[in-house]
């Protein structure tokens, strides 16, 4: 079990924060391009999922997986989108994403007067605490990740 990377987007598609851990293989495109693609994919998937849903839904989609990784997604009503990629051994990272939002992002970024709202996160403290939190997760596998 392992964690690959984390993205935080604001409503307009700007990537506010990115961090990676066990990501062995890069995407082969510039990072800006990768963010755009990721956000565009989320945007489309989200609207498609909403159209297909038999009843009105609140949470939208929460995760998808491929043969190699699982993408966990959390969207807040304020339009913040958190994306965590892990390997297939992690069934749900929803609580971790909730924690990152409620206890790290809100406390360290939103309530930090030095961080302008909806701007890329510069706070070193946030980066450190986030890193410590992700490393403390039971499914953060430091040794011998498969992918």
């Amino acid at each position, binding site marked *: 079990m392992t964690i690959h990377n984390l993205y935080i987007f604001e*409503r*307009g*598609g*700007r990537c506010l924060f990115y961090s990676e851990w066990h990501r062995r293989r890069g995407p082969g495109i510039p990072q800006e391009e990768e963010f*755009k693609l990721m*956000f*565009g994919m989320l*945007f489309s998937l989200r609207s498609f999922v909403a159209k297909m849903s038999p009843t*009105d839904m*609140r*949470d939208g989609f929460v995760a998808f997986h491929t043969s190699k990784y699982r993408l966990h997604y959390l969207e*807040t*009503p*304020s*339009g*913040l989108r958190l994306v965590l990629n892990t390997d297939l051994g992690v069934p749900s990272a929803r609580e971790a994403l909730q924690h990152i*939002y*409620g*206890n*790290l*992002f*809100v*406390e*360290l970024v*939103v*309530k*930090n*007067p030095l961080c302008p*709202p909806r701007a890329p996160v510069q706070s070193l*403290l946030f980066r450190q*605490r986030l890193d410590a939190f992700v490393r403390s997760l039971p499914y953060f596998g430091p040794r011998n990740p498969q992918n």
Partner: protein
Amino acid sequence: MSRQGGRGTESKKMYWYLPFISPSASLQLMNSELFTLTYGALVTQLCKDYENDDDVNKQLDKMGYNIGVRLIEDFLARSNVGRCHDFRETADVIAKIAFKMYLGITPSITNWSPGGDEFSLILENNPLVDFVELPDNHSTLIYSNLLCGVLRGALEMVQMAVDVKFVQDTLKGDSVTEIRMKFIRRIEDNLPAGEE
């Protein structure tokens, strides 16, 4: 109001802007009189800085807006409220959860417009004005206008454009304080430019 029951010495400190990573710390309550007096000091200073009441009202609204756009995140994280289906649900959440959480009061919701896009929040008791009387030369000052800005800013972040204003105020001799909220439109998501 009393402080959250403290364990050890840590909880005796108040961290105003330095973040504090612990759920119990974020629930720390502030003494309500200190809060009321601080707000009073803020309005007083604005009255000194600006010539006329209209400018003070505008400034209060603007400050409130800036508070609101951040406060909504704290609210969503702490209350776990999901997206509202209609404006009536929004009204309920504002009155019963948000006001309760941040001001310790629960305003009542009345005077729905027939179209369901406008309502009033009636505040029996507004904690911001506990020790306040308006002097004669400030008759057009909307003392609690910050609240309007907060509501407007917070709702804008959840994609609702609203118009918020005071229509009655106990400071001006009315029997209750009434905030009128009007739904203007939903702010739709747009795919950022340059993408298909």
